[in-house]
């Protein structure tokens, strides 16, 4: 059971290059986190937010290739957007990554981490 059984060339590229991976620390940085214990998937979303605008977005992840690829799509998109506009479009990710339906839970996990980061944002940076 090795090798790439699922996933497009896009997933492969994102998995290998993981654009936007990393952490953010600093006064205007927040972190949101979510864990799914059964598969031990663990997602952390880092946002640097200034005046409602996301300056930088980063992530840490222990998860399946689709989870990693999804974060590698989202984080670069988030950077430069208004914080209020950040979303995780699970349907869209499923489509673009050609992900099997059983990965939806992982995308929702990313949404949980994002939501937590955004609420930390509201609290900390308000």
């Amino acid at each position: 059971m090795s090798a790439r059984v699922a996933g497009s060339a896009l997933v492969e590229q994102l998995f290998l290059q993981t654009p936007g991976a990393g952490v953010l620390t600093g006064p205007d940085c927040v972190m949101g986190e979510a864990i799914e214990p059964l598969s031990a998937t663990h997602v952390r979303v880092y946002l640097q937010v200034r005046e409602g605008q996301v300056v930088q977005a980063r992530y840490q992840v222990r998860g399946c290739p689709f989870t990693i690829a999804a974060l590698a799509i989202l984080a670069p998109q988030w950077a430069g957007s208004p914080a209020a506009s950040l979303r995780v479009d699970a349907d869209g990710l499923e489509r673009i990554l050609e992900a099997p339906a059983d990965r939806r839970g992982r995308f929702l996990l990313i949404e949980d981490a994002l939501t937590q980061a955004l609420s930390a944002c509201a609290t900390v940076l308000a």
Partner: protein
Amino acid sequence: MIYLDHAATSALDPVVLAAMEAALREPTGNPSALHAAGRAAQARIEAARAQVAALVQAEPESIVFTSGATESDNLAILGAARAAHARGRHVMTVKTEHRAVLDAVSALAREGFSTTVLKPDREGLLAPSVIEQAIRPDTTLLSVMLVNNETGVIQDIASIAAVCGRRGVLLHVDAAQAVGRVPFSVATLGADLVSLASHKIHGPIGVGALYVRHHPRPALMPLFFGGGQEGALRPGTVAVHQIVGMGMAYAQAHALAAQEIPRLAGLTARLWQRLEALPAVYLNGSAMHRAPHILNVSFAGVDGEALRYALPELAVSSGSACSAGDPESSYVLRALGREDALANASLRFSVGRTTTADEIDRAAQAVMAAVTRLRALAPV
């Protein structure tokens, strides 16, 4: 591609290939036919039967050819339990057996048999005392494998056989992974029924054998019925080229054992030595009692699927290839007490006659790089 999945299936030895090609090119004869072509085919089958018997030190008459170890396991378990059902309807096996054994035992349960599935210890070993305690007056059969296909753990069959013999319980041993890697003789093993594989040891897929002890001979109900071949235990026109291939694979394994077994052990030891340099890696199953060709390692802190995805050039397995495609983490590793995530993040490396030290080094390097990268990506 670096092929380290020999426990799933192993490429034909060139000598086996040549023997099969010769058999395939022969003017065919149905071995049951009484004309010259048929008699020639029959002679080739008997020569192969002698080759198979020689490796496990059995009498040729005790070898029944089947279509593979799955069928052998089922013929042994369903066949012996059904034949003995008037004497008792309790059969036992172990949590870490191959699906062919576990599913055969489940089928017996659906037929109204009562079944016990014993739990091995964290090393994968089964104490004879555990068996002793589980045997009931109506127990007729125990099935325990010699070498576990996921972990390589070697079970102490002789001690188990002693218990079974004392208590009048038939013992079936799945030796599919042991053949050619862990030398054994059916006599010292002490089992009544032993499943033998071909394609795990560089023979063809689609053929196998069941050793059926001769004195005393356990009664077996065949799985299916027809022309009376193989002592009516396994009917159907006998596939000469397949059996010739299996025979040659056994002869080769026999001839090469003395040099090949230590070499395989050296390769898995070398791999473990490399991988051990990583933090938080765990060898699955007993370190002491293990077959030379299998190494099963869990990598903490990485996702199992991502790990496999990160190693496209490596043909390895996580769990028995027979049930791959099953997203569930290995039941064998969980039976040894590994938690789900760790069981998931484990790789079974299995080496064979074609595996080189260089491949081992490249595989180790690739795995270490992948684990390191994935761990760096993850929250601590």
